[in-house]
């Protein structure tokens, strides 16, 4: 893979992001705020490592989905850290 030398590749990547914003009617700022609130709620019940969390929009056909992968810290380690 060449390192982002092709302008068409750049166009495609930019379009991917802007189409997600258009289709969901969410600005990048709102998406970020939603992620943070989600994590806050989840943290109230289980312990998570914010750095290991991955939350993003994915496209399947013309449908958007919010994909979240949130690894939980084992209960044992939670007890130990307390």
């Amino acid at each position, binding site marked *: 893979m060449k390192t982002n*030398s*092709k*302008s*068409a*590749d750049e*166009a*495609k990547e*930019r*379009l*991917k992001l*802007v*189409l997600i914003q*258009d*289709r969901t009617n969410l600005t990048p700022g709102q998406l970020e705020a939603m992620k943070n609130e989600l994590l806050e709620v989840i943290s109230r019940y289980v312990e998570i490592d914010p750095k290991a969390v991955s939350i993003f929009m994915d*496209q399947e*056909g*013309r449908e958007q989905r919010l994909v979240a992968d949130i690894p939980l810290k084992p209960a044992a380690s939670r007890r130990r850290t307390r």
Partner: protein
Amino acid sequence: MAAKVVTVTSGKGGVGKTTTTANLAVALACQGQKVVCIDGDIGLRNLDVVLGLENRIVYDLVDLVEGRCRLRQAMIKDKRIPELYLIPAAQTRDKSAVSPSDMVRLCDEIRPEVDWILIDSPAGIERGFRNSIAPADIVLVVTNPEVSAVRDADRIIGLVEAEEKGPARLIINRVNPVLTKRGDMLDPDDVLELLAVELIGIIPEDESVVVSTNRGQPVAFEGTSKAGVAFRNVARRLQGEQVPFLNLQENNNGFFGRFTRLLKPGRV
């Protein structure tokens, strides 16, 4: 006969809606179909000049809708082909002179008489667009392989779905094979992946489109130009024929060679 109503739209202006409408109308008529095209761009009519029929206008769409003439009087017959007619837009009125239900009523009146009704939608997502898609059985979205046109096409495809007129079918117009090969133009495959709709046409950028528009003689009339052949292929796909697309991934013996081979007239 019970015509299918095909609306050509795009969101963004200047991507080639009118050129596409004119060429599909000509191609369908040359293939023995009876065609009426309607210019939906009230106040900014152009389908008449692209078709070369601007000097023959007496009545227009608004005259027809407001009852100042009969259907037959508003249908300008193209003398070059047996069964091609144009209902021009009014030039001195605005979009609000016609409503979506007027368009549905008008198309219902024309339907028994012809095989195809093609509507050239104005740019935008306002009244003129709503008017144009209201009677549609099939919506064709025209785009160019560039960011603003693709973005607007996505918006329009969503609106067409919301109006339950979907799924829209896509025409990628003005594809430049040299820029695409160099990686400086979105590949039709990329556009398709982004928009996730069914493709019905890839039209190469072609100087003969400019020349033919100057003359009011759409490229689909004559046999040799690449764009003309591509438009005729779209017309055949509309009629249910399986016509292969050019494959931009294979460029083993030169992109242009493959392009030309695939677009050669008579090759199905």
